[in-house]
Protein backbone atom coordinates (compact mmCIF):
# COMPACT_ATOMS: atom_id res chain seq x y z
CA UNK A 1 0.00 0.00 0.00
CA UNK A 2 1.95 3.09 1.11
CA UNK A 3 5.67 3.52 0.68
CA UNK A 4 7.08 4.66 4.01
CA UNK A 5 10.48 5.21 2.37
CA UNK A 6 9.00 8.29 0.73
CA UNK A 7 6.75 9.58 3.46
CA UNK A 8 6.08 9.38 7.17
CA UNK A 9 2.58 8.05 6.49
CA UNK A 10 2.09 4.39 7.32
CA UNK A 11 -0.99 2.28 6.87
CA UNK A 12 -0.83 1.28 10.50
CA UNK A 13 1.07 2.60 13.51
CA UNK A 14 1.19 0.18 16.44
CA UNK A 15 2.11 1.65 19.81
CA UNK A 16 3.68 -0.96 22.07
CA UNK A 17 5.71 -4.11 21.44
CA UNK A 18 4.53 -6.62 23.98
CA UNK A 19 2.59 -9.76 23.01
CA UNK A 20 -0.37 -7.72 21.67
CA UNK A 21 1.66 -5.19 19.68
CA UNK A 22 4.07 -7.67 18.11
CA UNK A 23 1.31 -10.13 17.18
CA UNK A 24 -0.66 -7.27 15.62
CA UNK A 25 2.43 -6.25 13.65
CA UNK A 26 2.90 -9.75 12.20
CA UNK A 27 -0.77 -10.11 11.25
CA UNK A 28 -0.92 -6.62 9.70
CA UNK A 29 2.32 -7.05 7.74
CA UNK A 30 1.09 -10.37 6.38
CA UNK A 31 -2.02 -8.56 5.13
CA UNK A 32 0.30 -6.33 3.12
CA UNK A 33 0.02 -3.26 5.31
CA UNK A 34 2.98 -0.93 5.82
CA UNK A 35 3.46 -1.11 9.57
CA UNK A 36 5.38 1.05 12.01
CA UNK A 37 5.79 -0.21 15.58
CA UNK A 38 6.81 2.37 18.18
CA UNK A 39 7.61 1.13 21.66
CA UNK A 40 9.84 2.02 24.56
CA UNK A 41 10.93 -1.61 24.77
CA UNK A 42 10.38 -5.07 23.35
CA UNK A 43 8.38 -7.48 25.46
CA UNK A 44 6.87 -5.20 28.09
CA UNK A 45 5.67 -6.92 31.24
CA UNK A 46 6.68 -10.38 30.01
CA UNK A 47 10.28 -9.33 30.64
CA UNK A 48 9.43 -9.39 34.34
CA UNK A 49 8.33 -13.01 34.16
CA UNK A 50 10.99 -15.56 34.92
CA UNK A 51 9.21 -18.64 33.69
CA UNK A 52 6.16 -18.90 31.43
CA UNK A 53 4.46 -22.29 31.64
CA UNK A 54 1.11 -21.60 30.00
CA UNK A 55 1.87 -20.22 26.56
CA UNK A 56 0.79 -22.94 24.16
CA UNK A 57 3.54 -24.58 22.16
CA UNK A 58 6.13 -24.06 24.89
CA UNK A 59 5.98 -26.31 27.93
CA UNK A 60 8.16 -23.78 29.69
CA UNK A 61 10.12 -20.79 28.48
CA UNK A 62 11.78 -17.76 30.08
CA UNK A 63 9.64 -14.63 29.62
CA UNK A 64 12.38 -12.57 27.91
CA UNK A 65 13.21 -15.54 25.63
CA UNK A 66 9.57 -15.82 24.53
CA UNK A 67 9.54 -12.12 23.69
CA UNK A 68 12.80 -12.56 21.77
CA UNK A 69 11.05 -15.18 19.66
CA UNK A 70 8.13 -12.77 19.09
CA UNK A 71 10.65 -10.10 18.04
CA UNK A 72 12.39 -12.45 15.61
CA UNK A 73 9.05 -13.34 14.03
CA UNK A 74 8.10 -9.66 13.77
CA UNK A 75 11.42 -8.82 12.15
CA UNK A 76 10.93 -11.58 9.58
CA UNK A 77 8.06 -9.46 8.28
CA UNK A 78 8.48 -6.04 6.72
CA UNK A 79 7.78 -4.10 9.90
CA UNK A 80 9.54 -0.84 10.77
CA UNK A 81 10.46 -0.76 14.47
CA UNK A 82 11.34 2.41 16.33
CA UNK A 83 12.33 2.47 20.01
CA UNK A 84 10.62 5.49 21.51
CA UNK A 85 7.97 6.48 24.01
CA UNK A 86 4.84 7.96 22.48
CA UNK A 87 3.69 11.15 24.15
CA UNK A 88 0.63 11.99 22.05
CA UNK A 89 -1.86 10.58 19.56
CA UNK A 90 -4.00 13.07 17.65
CA UNK A 91 -6.58 12.92 14.93
CA UNK A 92 -4.84 14.79 12.13
CA UNK A 93 -7.70 14.55 9.71
CA UNK A 94 -10.92 12.57 9.67
CA UNK A 95 -13.22 12.35 6.70
CA UNK A 96 -15.65 9.72 5.53
CA UNK A 97 -13.19 8.26 3.06
CA UNK A 98 -9.94 8.57 4.96
CA UNK A 99 -8.45 9.39 8.34
CA UNK A 100 -4.92 10.24 9.33
CA UNK A 101 -3.57 10.07 12.87
CA UNK A 102 -0.48 11.83 14.18
CA UNK A 103 1.61 9.77 16.61
CA UNK A 104 4.32 11.77 18.35
CA UNK A 105 7.33 10.14 20.00
CA UNK A 106 9.55 11.84 22.56
CA UNK A 107 12.68 11.29 20.46
CA UNK A 108 11.52 10.51 16.94
CA UNK A 109 9.01 13.29 16.34
CA UNK A 110 5.68 12.79 14.60
CA UNK A 111 4.76 9.84 12.40
CA UNK A 112 1.44 9.44 10.65
CA UNK A 113 -0.84 6.44 10.35
CA UNK A 114 -4.08 5.78 8.53
CA UNK A 115 -4.98 3.54 11.43
CA UNK A 116 -3.54 3.06 14.91
CA UNK A 117 -3.44 0.15 17.35
CA UNK A 118 -2.84 0.93 21.02
CA UNK A 119 -1.01 -1.95 22.72
CA UNK A 120 0.85 -0.18 25.50
CA UNK A 121 0.22 -2.70 28.26
CA UNK A 122 0.58 -2.07 31.96
CA UNK A 123 3.26 -1.30 34.51
CA UNK A 124 3.54 -1.95 38.25
CA UNK A 125 1.41 0.47 40.23
CA UNK A 126 3.33 2.70 42.60
CA UNK A 127 2.31 3.90 46.06
CA UNK A 128 2.92 7.60 45.39
CA UNK A 129 4.32 8.23 48.86
CA UNK A 130 7.42 10.22 49.88
CA UNK A 131 10.62 8.19 49.59
CA UNK A 132 9.31 5.71 47.03
CA UNK A 133 11.14 7.21 44.05
CA UNK A 134 14.16 8.37 46.04
CA UNK A 135 14.88 4.87 47.31
CA UNK A 136 13.98 2.90 44.16
CA UNK A 137 16.82 0.39 43.78
CA UNK A 138 18.09 1.43 47.21
CA UNK A 139 15.75 -0.83 49.14
CA UNK A 140 12.52 -0.14 47.23
CA UNK A 141 11.84 -2.89 44.72
CA UNK A 142 9.05 -3.78 42.32
CA UNK A 143 10.61 -7.17 41.51
CA UNK A 144 10.91 -9.63 44.37
CA UNK A 145 12.04 -12.32 41.94
CA UNK A 146 15.02 -10.11 41.04
CA UNK A 147 15.99 -8.55 44.33
CA UNK A 148 14.90 -10.88 47.15
CA UNK A 149 18.36 -12.55 47.33
CA UNK A 150 19.83 -9.18 48.38
CA UNK A 151 17.75 -9.20 51.56
CA UNK A 152 19.04 -12.37 53.20
CA UNK A 153 18.87 -11.95 57.01
CA UNK A 154 17.17 -8.54 56.62
CA UNK A 155 13.94 -7.19 58.04
CA UNK A 156 11.74 -6.18 55.12
CA UNK A 157 8.19 -5.16 54.22
CA UNK A 158 5.93 -6.30 51.43
CA UNK A 159 3.09 -3.95 50.49
CA UNK A 160 0.06 -5.63 48.95
CA UNK A 161 -2.17 -8.45 50.10
CA UNK A 162 -2.94 -10.06 46.73
CA UNK A 163 -1.26 -12.99 45.01
CA UNK A 164 1.82 -11.05 43.95
CA UNK A 165 2.27 -9.70 47.49
CA UNK A 166 2.00 -13.20 48.94
CA UNK A 167 4.43 -14.50 46.32
CA UNK A 168 6.91 -11.75 47.26
CA UNK A 169 6.67 -12.84 50.90
CA UNK A 170 7.37 -16.43 49.85
CA UNK A 171 10.35 -15.30 47.74
CA UNK A 172 11.78 -13.41 50.73
CA UNK A 173 11.22 -16.30 53.16
CA UNK A 174 12.96 -18.50 50.61
CA UNK A 175 16.14 -16.44 50.83
CA UNK A 176 15.98 -16.43 54.64
CA UNK A 177 14.87 -12.88 55.30
CA UNK A 178 14.86 -12.42 59.07
CA UNK A 179 11.35 -10.91 59.25
CA UNK A 180 8.72 -9.99 56.65
CA UNK A 181 6.07 -7.38 57.47
CA UNK A 182 3.12 -7.77 55.14
CA UNK A 183 1.20 -4.50 54.83
CA UNK A 184 -2.23 -4.45 53.24
CA UNK A 185 -4.72 -1.63 52.98
CA UNK A 186 -7.66 -4.01 53.22
CA UNK A 187 -7.81 -7.72 54.12
CA UNK A 188 -5.62 -10.33 52.45
CA UNK A 189 -7.01 -11.38 49.07
CA UNK A 190 -4.34 -13.84 47.93
CA UNK A 191 -5.28 -17.42 47.01
CA UNK A 192 -5.65 -19.79 49.95
CA UNK A 193 -2.78 -21.98 48.83
CA UNK A 194 -0.38 -19.01 49.00
CA UNK A 195 -1.80 -17.63 52.24
CA UNK A 196 -1.30 -20.94 54.00
CA UNK A 197 2.40 -20.80 53.21
CA UNK A 198 2.66 -17.15 54.29
CA UNK A 199 0.64 -17.25 57.49
CA UNK A 200 2.16 -20.42 58.97
CA UNK A 201 5.64 -18.88 58.99
CA UNK A 202 6.46 -17.21 62.30
CA UNK A 203 8.75 -14.71 60.55
CA UNK A 204 5.71 -13.07 58.93
CA UNK A 205 3.90 -10.21 60.66
CA UNK A 206 0.67 -9.10 58.96
CA UNK A 207 -0.59 -5.50 59.18
CA UNK A 208 -4.15 -5.56 57.82
CA UNK A 209 -5.97 -2.28 57.12
CA UNK A 210 -2.74 -0.28 57.21
CA UNK A 211 -1.68 2.35 54.68
CA UNK A 212 1.90 3.26 53.87
CA UNK A 213 2.57 6.96 54.43
CA UNK A 214 6.31 7.26 53.85
CA UNK A 215 9.47 5.31 53.10
CA UNK A 216 12.34 6.65 55.14
CA UNK A 217 16.11 6.37 55.05
CA UNK A 218 19.43 8.03 54.44
CA UNK A 219 21.37 6.50 51.53
CA UNK A 220 19.29 3.33 51.69
CA UNK A 221 15.86 2.44 53.06
CA UNK A 222 15.80 2.32 56.84
CA UNK A 223 12.11 2.37 57.69
CA UNK A 224 8.48 2.52 56.74
CA UNK A 225 5.73 4.66 58.25
CA UNK A 226 2.27 3.10 58.29
CA UNK A 227 -1.06 4.28 59.65
CA UNK A 228 -4.04 2.17 60.68
CA UNK A 229 -7.74 3.03 60.32
CA UNK A 230 -7.87 4.72 63.73
CA UNK A 231 -5.13 7.10 62.57
CA UNK A 232 -2.42 5.55 64.75
CA UNK A 233 1.00 5.84 63.11
CA UNK A 234 3.74 3.30 63.45
CA UNK A 235 7.34 3.30 62.18
CA UNK A 236 8.70 -0.09 61.16
CA UNK A 237 12.48 -0.46 60.86
CA UNK A 238 13.01 -2.21 57.52
CA UNK A 239 15.85 -2.40 55.00
CA UNK A 240 13.65 -3.26 52.04
CA UNK A 241 10.16 -2.44 50.76
CA UNK A 242 8.67 -4.64 48.05
CA UNK A 243 5.71 -2.99 46.38
CA UNK A 244 3.15 -5.40 44.91
CA UNK A 245 -0.10 -3.46 44.62
CA UNK A 246 -1.12 -4.43 41.14
CA UNK A 247 -0.70 -2.82 37.76
CA UNK A 248 -1.82 0.35 36.00
CA UNK A 249 -2.31 0.85 32.24
CA UNK A 250 0.11 2.94 30.19
CA UNK A 251 -2.65 5.10 28.78
CA UNK A 252 -2.18 8.56 30.34
CA UNK A 253 -1.15 10.10 27.01
CA UNK A 254 -4.33 8.92 25.27
CA UNK A 255 -6.57 11.81 26.19
CA UNK A 256 -8.64 11.42 23.01
CA UNK A 257 -9.83 7.92 23.92
CA UNK A 258 -12.62 6.86 26.26
CA UNK A 259 -11.26 4.92 29.23
CA UNK A 260 -12.60 3.10 32.27
CA UNK A 261 -12.25 4.49 35.80
CA UNK A 262 -9.04 2.44 36.02
CA UNK A 263 -7.61 4.03 32.87
CA UNK A 264 -8.13 1.02 30.60
CA UNK A 265 -9.10 1.86 27.02
CA UNK A 266 -12.75 1.06 26.29
CA UNK A 267 -13.05 -1.30 23.32
CA UNK A 268 -15.80 -3.39 21.81
CA UNK A 269 -15.38 -7.04 20.86
CA UNK A 270 -13.77 -5.91 17.57
CA UNK A 271 -11.03 -3.99 19.44
CA UNK A 272 -12.57 -0.70 18.27
CA UNK A 273 -12.22 2.40 20.44
CA UNK A 274 -14.48 5.45 20.45
CA UNK A 275 -12.46 6.89 17.56
CA UNK A 276 -12.92 5.28 14.15
CA UNK A 277 -9.53 4.05 12.93
CA UNK A 278 -7.99 3.67 16.39
CA UNK A 279 -8.03 0.14 17.78
CA UNK A 280 -6.65 -1.20 21.06
CA UNK A 281 -5.53 -4.60 22.30
CA UNK A 282 -4.03 -6.37 25.28
CA UNK A 283 -3.60 -5.35 28.90
CA UNK A 284 -4.13 -1.63 28.21
CA UNK A 285 -7.78 -2.35 27.40
CA UNK A 286 -10.84 -3.37 29.42
CA UNK A 287 -10.68 -6.92 28.04
CA UNK A 288 -10.69 -9.20 31.10
CA UNK A 289 -7.92 -11.65 32.06
CA UNK A 290 -4.43 -10.27 31.57
CA UNK A 291 -2.57 -13.20 30.06
CA UNK A 292 0.13 -13.37 27.38
CA UNK A 293 -1.94 -15.65 25.20
CA UNK A 294 -5.01 -13.41 25.48
CA UNK A 295 -3.01 -10.26 24.69
CA UNK A 296 -1.52 -11.98 21.64
CA UNK A 297 -4.98 -13.07 20.49
CA UNK A 298 -6.39 -9.57 20.95
CA UNK A 299 -3.43 -8.18 18.98
CA UNK A 300 -4.29 -10.50 16.09
CA UNK A 301 -7.93 -9.41 16.25
CA UNK A 302 -7.02 -5.72 16.30
CA UNK A 303 -4.77 -6.13 13.25
CA UNK A 304 -7.45 -7.93 11.25
CA UNK A 305 -10.01 -5.30 12.24
CA UNK A 306 -7.59 -2.50 11.29
CA UNK A 307 -7.02 -4.16 7.91
CA UNK A 308 -10.78 -4.49 7.32
CA UNK A 309 -11.24 -0.85 8.31
CA UNK A 310 -8.51 0.27 5.91
CA UNK A 311 -9.96 -1.82 3.10
CA UNK A 312 -13.32 -0.13 3.58
CA UNK A 313 -11.95 3.36 4.13
CA UNK A 314 -8.93 3.44 1.95
CA UNK A 315 -8.43 5.45 -1.19
CA UNK A 316 -5.68 2.87 -1.67
CA UNK A 317 -8.37 0.69 -3.18
CA UNK A 318 -8.16 3.13 -6.05
CA UNK A 319 -4.37 3.02 -6.36
CA UNK A 320 -1.23 2.92 -4.29
CA UNK A 321 -2.72 5.19 -1.71
CA UNK A 322 -2.09 8.23 0.36
CA UNK A 323 1.08 10.06 0.79
CA UNK A 324 0.97 12.94 3.23
CA UNK A 325 0.45 15.23 0.26
CA UNK A 326 -2.52 13.30 -1.03
CA UNK A 327 -3.87 13.16 2.51
CA UNK A 328 -3.84 16.95 2.46
CA UNK A 329 -1.32 17.44 5.30
Amino acid sequence: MNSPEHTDLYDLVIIGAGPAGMTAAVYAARKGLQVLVISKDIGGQVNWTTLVENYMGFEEIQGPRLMEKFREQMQDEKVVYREDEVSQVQVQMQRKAESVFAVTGRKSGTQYGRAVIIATGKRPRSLGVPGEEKFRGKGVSFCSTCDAPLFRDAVVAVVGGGNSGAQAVIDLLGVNARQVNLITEFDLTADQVLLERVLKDERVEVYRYHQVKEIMGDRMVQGLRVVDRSGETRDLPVAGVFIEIGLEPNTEFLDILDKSAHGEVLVDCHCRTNIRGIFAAGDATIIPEKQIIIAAGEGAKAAIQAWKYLMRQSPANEGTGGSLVSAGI
Partner: protein
Amino acid sequence: MAEVTVYTTPTCPWCQKLKGFLHDEGIPFTEINVAEDPDKAREMMDKTGQRGVPVTTVGDQVVIGYDPEALRELIQ
Protein backbone atom coordinates in the same frame (compact mmCIF):
# COMPACT_ATOMS: atom_id res chain seq x y z
CA MET B 1 37.82 -0.25 26.82
CA ALA B 2 36.85 0.08 30.48
CA GLU B 3 36.10 -3.16 32.28
CA VAL B 4 32.41 -4.08 32.33
CA THR B 5 31.00 -5.87 35.39
CA VAL B 6 27.37 -6.96 35.68
CA TYR B 7 25.85 -7.74 39.08
CA THR B 8 22.99 -10.20 38.76
CA THR B 9 20.73 -12.71 40.45
CA PRO B 10 19.84 -15.92 38.60
CA THR B 11 16.08 -15.30 38.95
CA CYS B 12 16.13 -11.78 37.50
CA PRO B 13 14.58 -11.56 34.00
CA TRP B 14 16.10 -8.12 33.33
CA CYS B 15 19.56 -9.53 34.13
CA GLN B 16 19.03 -12.17 31.42
CA LYS B 17 17.99 -9.46 28.99
CA LEU B 18 20.99 -7.31 29.85
CA LYS B 19 23.42 -10.19 29.38
CA GLY B 20 21.78 -10.99 26.04
CA PHE B 21 22.27 -7.37 24.97
CA LEU B 22 25.98 -7.41 25.91
CA HIS B 23 26.47 -10.72 24.06
CA ASP B 24 24.71 -9.37 20.97
CA GLU B 25 26.83 -6.20 21.02
CA GLY B 26 30.02 -8.25 21.45
CA ILE B 27 30.87 -6.51 24.71
CA PRO B 28 32.96 -8.68 27.06
CA PHE B 29 31.85 -8.57 30.69
CA THR B 30 32.31 -10.22 34.06
CA GLU B 31 29.16 -11.46 35.78
CA ILE B 32 28.88 -11.48 39.55
CA ASN B 33 25.99 -13.46 41.01
CA VAL B 34 25.17 -11.55 44.19
CA ALA B 35 22.58 -14.14 45.26
CA GLU B 36 25.22 -16.73 46.07
CA ASP B 37 27.91 -14.42 47.42
CA PRO B 38 26.89 -12.06 50.27
CA ASP B 39 30.34 -10.42 50.25
CA LYS B 40 29.92 -9.51 46.59
CA ALA B 41 26.40 -8.24 47.34
CA ARG B 42 27.89 -5.95 49.97
CA GLU B 43 30.60 -4.88 47.49
CA MET B 44 27.90 -4.00 44.94
CA MET B 45 25.98 -1.91 47.47
CA ASP B 46 29.14 -0.09 48.61
CA LYS B 47 30.37 0.57 45.06
CA THR B 48 27.10 1.49 43.40
CA GLY B 49 24.73 2.55 46.20
CA GLN B 50 22.23 0.06 44.78
CA ARG B 51 20.34 -2.77 46.47
CA GLY B 52 18.67 -4.08 43.34
CA VAL B 53 19.76 -5.81 40.16
CA PRO B 54 20.86 -5.60 37.45
CA VAL B 55 23.61 -3.06 38.04
CA THR B 56 26.51 -2.63 35.63
CA THR B 57 29.78 -0.88 36.23
CA VAL B 58 31.79 0.40 33.27
CA GLY B 59 35.10 1.39 34.86
CA ASP B 60 33.95 3.62 37.69
CA GLN B 61 30.65 4.56 36.02
CA VAL B 62 27.43 2.90 37.18
CA VAL B 63 24.43 1.97 35.01
CA ILE B 64 21.27 1.04 36.88
CA GLY B 65 18.83 -1.51 35.50
CA TYR B 66 18.51 -2.47 31.83
CA ASP B 67 19.51 0.67 29.97
CA PRO B 68 21.04 -0.17 26.57
CA GLU B 69 21.36 3.50 25.55
CA ALA B 70 23.37 4.43 28.63
CA LEU B 71 25.59 1.36 28.18
CA ARG B 72 26.24 2.10 24.49
CA GLU B 73 27.13 5.68 25.36
CA LEU B 74 29.61 4.66 28.06
CA ILE B 75 31.20 1.84 26.11
CA GLN B 76 31.67 3.61 22.77
